[in-house]
């Protein structure tokens, strides 16, 4: 590995003891000898196995469920339904002080995605549990489903999740996360070229080699132990504590070995129900995804649809950027509203652009709930941004590397979300990448530096049209396939709401706080 200590030498101490030196991982010996204990290595005598009866429909009302025949099958010890779950509706977002509760650990009334768990069978063996799941009779009334983020926002779209009352997440009274910086309309008018492009991501499964799961068991003194491969031990502990309405000091979570996570093991779907099973049977209970379940129902990286409209000058300067982002949460929030915030905050990219307008909406559809995955929100935004940068460079006849250097943030620049740029390094990164790739760049660009020519005029917060800008201010020219820009989009008509009445929205402890500050996205 090459260390470029010539870069930013004045900003760094040279008394580092670890950087640049090999350090043995503390778990390496356990890994190479096979002694590292993953959750499943804590199998216990008398352990039961939990499997789920899952919805075959993308969207359906549950008319009735009959578990009697399944309960009589050989090996079946107990069947759990929503009525057994102390807190029937929950949200992972409560971990960061946000609501509303929108997801039942076991579905009742309705199912909102294919594969949603409706009942859990606890049996002496995995095959016995699976066989009993197949024998649970559930009478569904299929409902129209929606799979496209823009169709979900159109009036008349099926209402996916009653707990939100509409098909998007409400950000403290706003339909979307927004960034307003300068005057994009004026920027487009002044630009030599204006282009708008559409980018569509697909959901991506983490596919860890170890599928998600846990083993829960009664411990002494009324406590319960849970061996789990969660990536977020204390998140999962608190989630279980809330769903079970049990103080967390009665739950002992043991984790630390995760056979690949990548964000796919933070949703805590196994722990609460396995613990509930252990409580109701007083025996150890194992819940584990098969590979097929891991692919079908574990939450993937959410798909984003991103429109970017840019104004660029012939000399290569980007003068205006307008972006609309639709993050597909699937049927439930999980952590997607957070991803949408990150997408919005990231959207101007690592580039200085004096006029920026971003709308990011978190949309509910009847797809598998999406959640965390390595930089979720940011990764999709980056894909769109960097493809867009190549297109812009081609448009003005610039070299793509030089074009990025030219537009990069420099120290002292004001970012669109009103943070001053510090420790910028994109220019140096691109210069180094060009050198390693034998990609010739002009001397002018070789000489540029993140530490020079930033700030000053670029540190100014430009005049921004008032937030209640009239509709004509909204950049138009969205592609035909798209809806009108979000700011002008009417909410779906009231009659599209389902007859099922959601519980009233209760104010949350975190209400009034900005999500960006709660989630620390300002520290980028």
């Amino acid at each position, binding site marked *: *590995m090459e260390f470029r200590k010539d870069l930013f030498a004045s900003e760094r101490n040279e008394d580092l003891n670890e950087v640049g*030196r*090999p*350090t043995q991982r503390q778990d390496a010996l356990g890994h190479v000898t096979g002694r590292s204990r993953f959750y*499943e290595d804590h*199998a216990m005598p008398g352990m039961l196995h939990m499997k789920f009866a899952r919805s075959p429909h993308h969207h359906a009302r549950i008319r009735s469920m009959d578990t009697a025949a399944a309960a009589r099958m050989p090996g079946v010890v107990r069947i759990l339904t929503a009525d057994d779950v102390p807190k029937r509706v929950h949200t992972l977002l409560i971990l960061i002080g946000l609501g509303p509760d929108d997801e039942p650990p076991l579905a009742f009334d309705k199912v909102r995605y294919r594969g949603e768990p409706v009942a859990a069978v606890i049996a002496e063996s995995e095959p016995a549990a699976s066989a009993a799941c197949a024998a649970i009779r559930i009478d569904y009334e299929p409902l129209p489903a929606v799979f496209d983020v823009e169709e979900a926002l159109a009036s008349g779209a099926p209402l996916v999740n009653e707990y939100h009352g509409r098909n998007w997440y409400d950000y403290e009274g706003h339909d979307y996360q927004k960034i307003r910086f300068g005057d994009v309309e004026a920027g487009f008018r002044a630009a030599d070229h204006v282009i708008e492009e559409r980018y569509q991501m697909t959901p991506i499964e983490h596919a860890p*080699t170890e599928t998600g799961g846990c083993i829960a068991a009664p411990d002494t003194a009324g406590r319960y132990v849970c061996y789990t491969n969660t990536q977020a031990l204390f998140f999962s502990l608190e989630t279980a504590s809330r769903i079970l309405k049990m103080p967390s000091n009665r739950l002992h979570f043991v984790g630390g070995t995760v*056979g*690949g996570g990548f964000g796919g093991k933070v949703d805590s779907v196994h722990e609460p129900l396995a613990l509930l099973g252990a409580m109701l049977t007083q025996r150890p209970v194992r819940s584990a995804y098969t*590979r097929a379940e891991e692919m079908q129902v574990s939450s993937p990286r959410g798909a984003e649809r991103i429109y970017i409209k840019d104004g660029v000058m012939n000399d290569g300067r980007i003068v205006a950027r307008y972006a609309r982002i639709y993050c597909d949460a699937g049927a439930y929030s999980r952590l997607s509203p957070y991803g949408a915030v990150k997408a919005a905050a990231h959207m101007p990219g690592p580039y200085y652009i004096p006029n920026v307008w971003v709308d990011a909406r978190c949309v509910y559809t009847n797809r598998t709930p999406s959640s965390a995955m390595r930089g979720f929100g940011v990764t999709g935004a980056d894909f769109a941004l960097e493809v867009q940068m190549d297109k812009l460079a081609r448009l003005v006849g610039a070299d793509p590397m030089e074009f990025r250097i030219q537009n990069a943030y420099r120290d002292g620049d004001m970012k669109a979300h009103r943070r001053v740029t510090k420790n910028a390094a994109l220019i140096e990164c691109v210069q180094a990448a060009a050198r390693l790739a034998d990609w010739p760049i002009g001397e002018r660009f070789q000489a540029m530096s993140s530490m020079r020519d930033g700030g000053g005029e670029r540190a100014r917060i430009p005049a921004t049209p008032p937030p209640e800008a009239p509709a004509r201010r909204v950049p138009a020219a969205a592609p035909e396939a798209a809806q009108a820009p979000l700011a002008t989009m009417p909410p779906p008509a009231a009659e599209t709401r389902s007859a099922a009445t959601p519980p009233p929205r209760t104010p949350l402890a975190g209400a009034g706080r900005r999500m960006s500050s709660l989630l620390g996205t300002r520290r980028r």
Partner: protein
Amino acid sequence: MSHLTLRYRLNGNERADLVAGDETLLSLLRYRLDTTSVRQGCRQGTCGTCTVLVDGEPRLACITLAATCEGCAIETADSLPGSGGLHPLQQAFMDHFAAQCGFCTTGMLMAAKALLDVNPSPSREEVIDAIGGNICRCTGYEPIVEAVLAAATAARAGATPPAAHRHC
């Protein structure tokens, strides 16, 4: 009847276990004999995590019926350390950061051992082919390939491999 007595060697020890006709080798080793170094990844024969050696050949325990291993010698990662300590592959995997989450590691080690046992001087392409059926989602494979090549060098020299000078 669907049960039979299976006589085999597990890591050098003679064994006789009663197995059902439809019991997989993975089920026997991992879930009945507590050989937890044999891990279950997919149970579909696609990820290589449960790779063990049967008479020296790499095999996927999840899609091998135990009953078909009558008279065979089965090796798991537990057999790797010798009297002198870690197997060169184990040492090299540690030195080259070839194990991250550790879940694929034991299967990866057995796939690599199957190669080195018959080919002590493999080319890079042969190493890639040898671990081509083993999925690692963490490392990007490069450190694993480096580790296997280093282990081969070390094993030929009859010593433990030199520590990596490169830290990934």
